[in-house]
């Protein structure tokens, strides 16, 4: 007979849930950072979001 749950499964579950939440948190922080940097309108390029004043368009 196969037991439905085992202590091993609980430990794996803790790992999977922990990793899942970590990844969701990581995605959230990257998204929030992107929103902040883009909406601020700093002169930057998409690949690294580092401010480059030399890109400023002089009128």
């Amino acid at each position, binding site marked *: 007979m196969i037991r439905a749950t085992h202590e*091993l499964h609980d*430990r*794996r579950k*803790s*790992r999977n*849930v*922990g*990793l899942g939440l970590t990844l969701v948190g990581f995605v959230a*922080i*990257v998204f*929030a*950072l992107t*929103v*902040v940097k883009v909406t*601020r309108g700093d002169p930057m390029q998409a690949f*690294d*979001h*580092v401010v480059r004043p030399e890109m400023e368009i002089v009128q």
Partner: protein
Amino acid sequence: MSDASISAPREYEPTFGDYVALLKPRVMSLVVFTALVGLLVAPGGLHAVEMLAAILFIALGAGASGALNMWYDADIDAVMRRTAKRPVPSGRVEPGEALAIGLGLSGISVVMLALATNLVAAGLLAFTIFFYAVVYSMWLKRSTPQNIVIGGAAGAFPPVIGWAAVTGDVSMASVLMFGLIFMWTPPHFWALALFTKSDYGDAGVPMLTVTHGRDSTRRHILAYTVLLAPVGIGLALTSVGGPITLAAAVVLNALFLKGAFSIWRRDDLAAEADNYAAEKKFFKLSLYYLFLHFSALLADAALGGLL
């Protein structure tokens, strides 16, 4: 997941908490606090999200260096009672996993800090991880009784990184914040070493109390405390200081010097008679010392914002 992984499980399946323990969460709390102070007292400012990301990735970098330290020091940790229950020596996490997590998180934290803030902060974080994992753990910890001094440098970097995350540079104020933690670490740990029974000797780690004797350790505590005082006062006189920091620096350093002096004045015979009361009191004071010093910087920054 394949059936093979179910039919042939390893002896112990680590939980998520076992991996978190690799990152030394208690050390991380000090890193978060000092880095946050560095961030908040620096001139200029970051968006709240950038600030949160900066603190998170500085803490993650510190955790990564902790995992690398646990991977490399598993042999020492297994011998000592205080550390024998850590994930790697107790067998809950494989050494290879600790190494992979340490290297992986190092890369992620440095790259993310660069993206969230700037390259100077990221470079400083990378250097801190290298310094703690390679210079301290792999090289000097096992070869010199000044290991505490060198390890202290790694712990002193977070406020400098926090400062650089805002300003993109290193200044006199951030160097003095580094100096404060750097000079504070040896008396803090050596006081602890005087009244706790350690098994560093069994593990082959040279500690000052063993290699140079306990009287020499008492002299070292006094010497570092004397050198610490001008750093604390100097920090209060920089642009980040103010009346609260200056008052805190004067009072805290006077108390710290008094404690170090009473430790220096007596020997082990006298210390055993009162169950190391002076050493324990000094150690407790050392915890308040750092916390209050950095809190005073925050208070002055808040006061400056109000005025």
